[in-house]
């Protein structure tokens, strides 16, 4: 009995996800797509016509499964462990170095890159976020994204605010004007570790902090990082421009709050198509780059977004490597890049597709400018995904404290980040 009951835990790590197998069916590929649109169903409907085109061209059938973000990393890990599962996958580009370390992905050396159109096709910043420096990339970029500040135009006008804030001080001031009954200045995704950690990175850069030193060792609880994280949490704890309820948001409720006019501002990546799906017309919102501190802290960098994006990788265990690479080539072709990025509101990862008028809309222009000038890649170290979860979870706890009315002090932030750092070493 004890044995039976214990297995749940004792063998968690031992059990691999069986997933779909591609064995014996070289003319069929299994593709795990990440969830880019407003819903899984939306993504399936978006991708299927393209996959049909690919089948017509090559005779290779692609079975797609759209995996929610909450499961994707676990599923990839299981596939890497068991050597079974999909042939081609989408990965969050920040995981590239972590997954590269498992040695389960096909490295895109020059010869392999040549098979998908060559290295020079890709936007250099996006390709740089596809693996550790000095190694062949573990993936190629598929969709490019950046963070921006979305704001509700009508709420701004009603409050007499004419231009979007460019500094955090202005954002707080504006947020206070916009916070009134049933309406909040800003919405955050406080219980989502990934979102939290992305902001930790950007704020950290602005406050002169680094999360890993040059040797790849974690440096979480430096004064710069503590100040950076505290600045972000204080938007709720001190400035009170964020609804305390946001501390339990982890299913994109902050996007829904913005689209439903419960919040006036939102920091997000390519949210336009999502707003539209939730019934908010493009005329209602404006977009601006993420703010900076009014006075740059010592060592602070001019960075206001991570180089965000989705990469496409091929598992070494595929039985149809050529077909898989053919599929990657297809998905990164000019025509597909235009169609898919247009639908998702993201930016093409290949230079030639960026000229398309579809990417000259205000939202894409801002995202493109940020990517081209003030975005930096998250540290490309094998422990990156642990950083996201540990620091992101620490911030979730800090938000929970702030929401519960407890003061969030520098010492507490330092302690939480310190504990997270210790866990990296164990």
């Amino acid at each position, binding site marked *: 009995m*004890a044995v039976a009951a214990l297995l749940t835990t004792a063998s968690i790590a031992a059990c691999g996800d069986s997933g779909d197998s591609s064995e014996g069916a070289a003319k069929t590929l299994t593709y795990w797509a990440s969830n880019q649109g407003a819903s899984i169903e939306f993504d399936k409907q978006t991708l299927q016509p393209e996959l049909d085109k690919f089948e017509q061209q090559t005779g290779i059938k692609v079975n797609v499964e759209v995996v929610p973000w909450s499961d994707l990393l676990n599923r990839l890990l299981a596939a890497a462990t068991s050597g079974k599962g999909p042939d081609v996958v989408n990965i969050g580009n920040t995981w590239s170095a972590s997954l590269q370390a*498992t040695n389960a992905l096909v490295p895109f050396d020059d010869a392999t890159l040549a098979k998908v159109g060559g290295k020079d096709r890709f936007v250099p910043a996006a390709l740089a976020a596809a693996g550790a420096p000095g190694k062949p990339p573990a993936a190629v970029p598929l969709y490019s994204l950046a963070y921006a500040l979305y704001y509700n135009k009508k709420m701004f006008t009603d409050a007499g605010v004419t231009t979007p804030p460019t500094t955090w001080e202005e954002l707080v001031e504006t947020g206070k004007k916009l916070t009134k009954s049933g309406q909040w200045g800003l919405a955050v995704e406080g*219980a989502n570790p990934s979102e939290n950690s992305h902001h930790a990175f950007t704020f950290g850069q602005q406050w002169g902090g680094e999360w890993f030193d040059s040797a790849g060792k974690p440096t979480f609880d430096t004064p710069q990082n503590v100040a950076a994280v505290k600045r972000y949490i204080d938007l709720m704890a001190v400035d009170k421009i964020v*609804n305390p309820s946001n501390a339990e948001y982890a299913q994109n409720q902050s996007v829904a709050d913005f689209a439903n006019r419960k919040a006036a501002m939102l920091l997000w990546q390519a949210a336009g198509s999502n707003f539209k799906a939730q019934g908010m017309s493009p005329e209602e919102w404006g977009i601006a780059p993420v703010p900076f501190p009014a006075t740059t802290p010592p060592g602070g960098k001019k960075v206001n977004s991570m180089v965000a994006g989705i990469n496409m990788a091929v598992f070494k265990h595929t039985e149809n490597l050529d077909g898989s690479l053919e599929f990657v080539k297809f998905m990164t072709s000019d025509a597909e890049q235009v169609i898919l990025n247009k639908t998702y509101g993201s930016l093409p990862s290949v230079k030639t597709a960026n000229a398309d008028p579809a990417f000259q809309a205000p939202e894409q222009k801002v995202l493109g400018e940020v990517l081209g000038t003030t975005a930096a890649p998250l540290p490309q170290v094998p422990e990156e995904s*642990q950083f996201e979860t540990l620091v992101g979870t620490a911030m*979730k*706890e800090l938000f929970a404290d702030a929401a519960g009315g407890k003061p969030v002090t520098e010492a507490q932030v330092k302690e939480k980040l310190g504990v997270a750092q210790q*866990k990296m070493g164990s």
Partner: protein
Amino acid sequence: MATTTAPGPVRPAGRPAQDGPPSRRKRRTVRRSYLPYLLLVPAALLELGIHVVPMLVGVWMSLLELTQFHIRDWSTAPFAGFENYRVTFDFDSATGKDLLHSFWVTALYTTLSVGFSWMLGLAAAVFLQRPFKGRALLRTLFLTPYALPVYTAVITWTFMFQRDTGLVNHALDQLGLIDGANPPFWLIGENSFVALLIVSVWKSWPFAFLCLMAGLQNVPPELYEASAIDGANFWRRLRDVTLPMLRPVNQVLLLVLFLWTFNDFNTPYVLFGGSAPRQADLISIHIYQSSFVTWNFGLGSAMSVALLLFLLVVTAVYLLVTNRRREHA
């Protein structure tokens, strides 16, 4: 089973008397003595494949430095000896301290959840013991949580516990029990433990109810009649007739509930979306976090093995004590 067959002096037709040839008799005996083992083979093989082998693999993993660099090919993982266990039991380090905290949370959670589930189950079973109109309906209703898929049920609870839009706060507000302008959180902070406990009891008590109801069917009505004649009231009957008669059921029921609750993974995982608040950080989800989140499967396995040993010891002691008590009784 054989003991309940037809009584009387009739000799079973298929059974030869002592008059058969000796060799045939011997073969028969041999065949019969092998048969039970033969029938056990499928179960034993499945038990090995599903339980024992993965467990041994878990033990082996706990001795390796199994991180993301080695999960693709375990043979490359360096042998770590008892290093993972040292980290697990180093209660001064962040990892050990958090594990110990999680252990105490789980112990409290298990005690309260099993206690409440058992009490609710007993109360419902006792009150539904005598037939009355609507009894079948109530029985069915009480068993609903047990019949629902765990994930669906817990997701529904997650919606209900949401601070701004959840049913729980809405109902409490309507009753005037909370300040509607500043409603409490249930899924983060201190209340998360209470929320977890509520869902757990809601989920487990029907099982206690079912077992105890079955157990009560075996209590002879004469015992109640006799005690009623002796003037025993309800509580006296409960204490001196019902509970002693339910002892064998309780022995198994409490053990099973304890093991299920202590190892409960689905409830916190679905309720809190993978990263539980510190106040409700149950051990199974803590181990999951320690292995999957930090990609340190060796450490996660070491914690699992420690948990396995702990539960084995608890189970052994429990069975020893309860069996001895029954022998003395």
